């Protein structure tokens, strides 16, 4: 099982903010990608408006998901692959383990895949006495460090080269260096041996295509190609929503994905995989298994309010522009999906109450939607989640997050609708505030339960006269009568 730490959001966020090294790394990533991604959309022959078309393509695919998944499965099977539909993480893990056992697998080489993080696959394999080598360099680093991904596409961006150097010296027994090429070469050498030995390769799937019956993997390092070419068995995991109908749709989405993720026109390696090695082919796996995972996605699909988030292609562009992610980083989100997309997806997958801080923590500034290659309206869905938290929702089993808040607003609503009581309380407050500490004409501290407001700022006191009183007075002075 994957660990869910969404409850620690606030504490972890504070920790990240207090860590200057992390702050520098975050600023650097956001600085680099923010402008580059926006510029990359402008290099599209169709112009940045292609994002809107991509949105349509995604939504159409989601609306026809049943047909597309059926077509994909039939076509993969036609090409000799196996397709397994997994209801939840456990079924998917068990299936993968069973395949591994059948082939007496001892070593697995793995490409980066967020879905496998979501279901905690590595732990399950380790519990089954199977060694797992993450081969994406970033994933390899965090696997050595025993951490979870900090960023959807750059899992180790929070580690400085010194930290990586120390980690490699400690875990791999190589002399300390902070020179990235030397460190990368050390990992290249070690992982090359693993690629040669491994009996099973595991990958994710960036985007499947129903009509042709293939999955696509995208990488810059080449690790996924090695992991899906050399071992005897290839198991690919895909979230059930990651599918396009035709190659034409694929074209648009892939180009946008690469731009959104790393501001490249195309990533270095894009592999289209539709089945195992044919009998006359020298290399490639003998068996190809595609695991299509639900794990809570169906519930999202059934709710028109949140269905849109299934259009996400996990490019991480929204992380790179988010002012909140830019301060607190990925670990605070307590689940593999971080940033704005995590703030919507995680509550929907693990429970809205359980992950309430994630959607409450975002600022609703809208930068994520502008950066998103498929124009997903994340702010709208954040608001919808908050509304559920405010009022509760039996459908999603959401309990009112703060009954006190509701009561206060109800009192407030009664108060402002009754002129006499409203004025009376204003007068009382105007008298009462005189007992509060003041400086330079500002109130320094409010009493509980309002004290949070003045924790880091002062507030203006209530004016001696209300607006209406002043208005009346002015008109009287000018001799105008109501």
């Amino acid at each position, binding site marked *: 099982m994957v660990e869910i730490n969404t409850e620690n959001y606030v504490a972890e966020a504070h920790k990240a903010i207090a860590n200057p090294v992390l702050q520098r790394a975050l600023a650097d990533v956001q600085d680099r990608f923010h402008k580059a991604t926006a510029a990359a959309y402008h290099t599209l022959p169709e112009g940045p408006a292609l994002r809107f078309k991509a949105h349509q393509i995604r939504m159409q695919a989601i609306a026809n998901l049943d047909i597309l998944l059926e077509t994909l499965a039939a076509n993969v099977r036609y090409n000799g692959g196996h397709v397994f539909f997994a209801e939840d993480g456990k079924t998917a893990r068990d299936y993968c383990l069973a395949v591994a056992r059948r082939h007496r697998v001892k070593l697995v080489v793995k490409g980066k895949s967020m879905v496998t993080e979501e279901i905690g696959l590595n732990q399950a394999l380790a519990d089954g006495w199977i060694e797992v080598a993450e081969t994406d360099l970033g994933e390899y680093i965090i696997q050595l460090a025993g951490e979870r991904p900090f960023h959807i596409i750059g899992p180790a961006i929070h580690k400085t080269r010194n930290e990586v150097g120390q980690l490699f010296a400690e875990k791999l027994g190589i002399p300390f260096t902070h020179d990235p090429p030397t460190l990368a070469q050390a990992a290249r050498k070690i992982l090359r041996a693993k690629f040669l030995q491994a009996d099973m390769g595991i990958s994710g799937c960036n985007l499947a295509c129903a009509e042709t019956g293939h999955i696509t993997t995208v990488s810059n390092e080449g690790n996924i190609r090695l992991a899906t070419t050399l071992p005897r068995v290839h198991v690919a995991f895909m979230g059930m929503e990651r599918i396009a109908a*035709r*190659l034409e749709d694929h074209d648009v989405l892939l180009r946008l994905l690469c731009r959104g993720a790393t501001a490249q026109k195309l990533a270095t390696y894009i592999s289209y995989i539709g089945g195992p090695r044919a009998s006359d082919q020298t290399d490639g796996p003998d068996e190809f298994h595609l695991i299509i995972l639900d794990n809570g996605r169906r519930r999202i699909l059934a709710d028109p309010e949140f269905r849109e988030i299934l259009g996400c292609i996990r490019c991480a562009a929204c992380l790179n522009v988010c002012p909140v992610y830019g301060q607190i980083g990925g670990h605070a989100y307590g689940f593999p999906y971080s940033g704005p997309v995590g703030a919507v997806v995680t509550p929907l997958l693990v429970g809205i109450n359980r992950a309430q801080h994630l959607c409450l923590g975002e600022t609703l500034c809208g930068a994520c939607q502008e950066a998103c290659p498929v124009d997903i309206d994340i702010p709208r869905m954040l608001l919808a989640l908050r509304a559920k938290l405010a009022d509760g929702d039996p459908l999603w089993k959401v309990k009112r997050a703060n009954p006190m808040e509701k009561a206060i607003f109800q009192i407030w609503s009664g108060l402002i609708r009754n002129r006499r009581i409203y004025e009376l309380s204003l007068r009382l407050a105007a008298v009462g505030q005189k007992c509060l500490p003041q400086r330079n004409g500002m109130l320094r501290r409010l009493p509980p339960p309002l004290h949070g407001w003045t924790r880091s700022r002062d507030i203006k006191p209530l004016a001696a006269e209300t607006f209406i009183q002043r208005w009346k007075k002015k008109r009287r002075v000018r001799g105008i009568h109501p």
Partner: protein
Amino acid sequence: MSEEFIRKVRWALGRPLHARRCEPNLRSRQGAGKSPSILERIQNRCDGERQGLLDKFREAAHPLGLKVYPHRDTEAVAAAIGALVRTKVPEWGQAKSVAAWRHPLIESLRLTEALAAQNVPVYFPEGPMGAPSACRFAKVDRQRWRERIFQSYIGITSADFGLAETATLVLRNRAGQARSVAIVPAIHVAVLEVSQLIADLQELYALLYSEAAHPREAVTNGMTLITGVSTTRDIGAVPVRPAHGPREVYVYVITGPHPKQGPS
């Protein structure tokens, strides 16, 4: 199991579970009408336009660290490969060996002879070409191939197409065209003719569909797009080449003896 899964997805979509579903007409929207004109455009390209694509390919390749060299004919390419083998040293171990595709263009380079003088063996995937039923690979053959490919420091392939817009090589899995040749050796050399250059993904997809009897045969069991050299930014965000793939990629484009200038 899968039917149950699909049934639940259908329920989530709010569709009647037992209503007759029409077969998805996936081809019907935008793309379908456009393909013939794309194909015509590709077929009617004159030499001048092809040269334009080559220029574009080279321009796009430059920032990616991809080295593109036009050559007049296969002899010139064979000579270039000979020079490469002479000057480059293996990344792992001492002995030099080369792996190559069994492919008409690559075989016309006569690499075994070209490299014999340097005493460098050239390994081809075993089995006769073009007769799939005759060449089912035994486990031992495949094991031997694995060892050879790991020994080889240069891998020589052709490519199905080159995409000019992004300097992308398109390689499809076929008998004799082992995919490991383009990813395991430290240096990848791709040889293609200028006529194999096309503009972009859109043209590629149109061609794939036009060649296939059924859409599911368009990609078959595998195709790889290679755009540049294996790269990582995972250590301190510093770009490093290579990560796991080839450290150098050379593209030799055979332009033919007299590239004519077509009408602009």
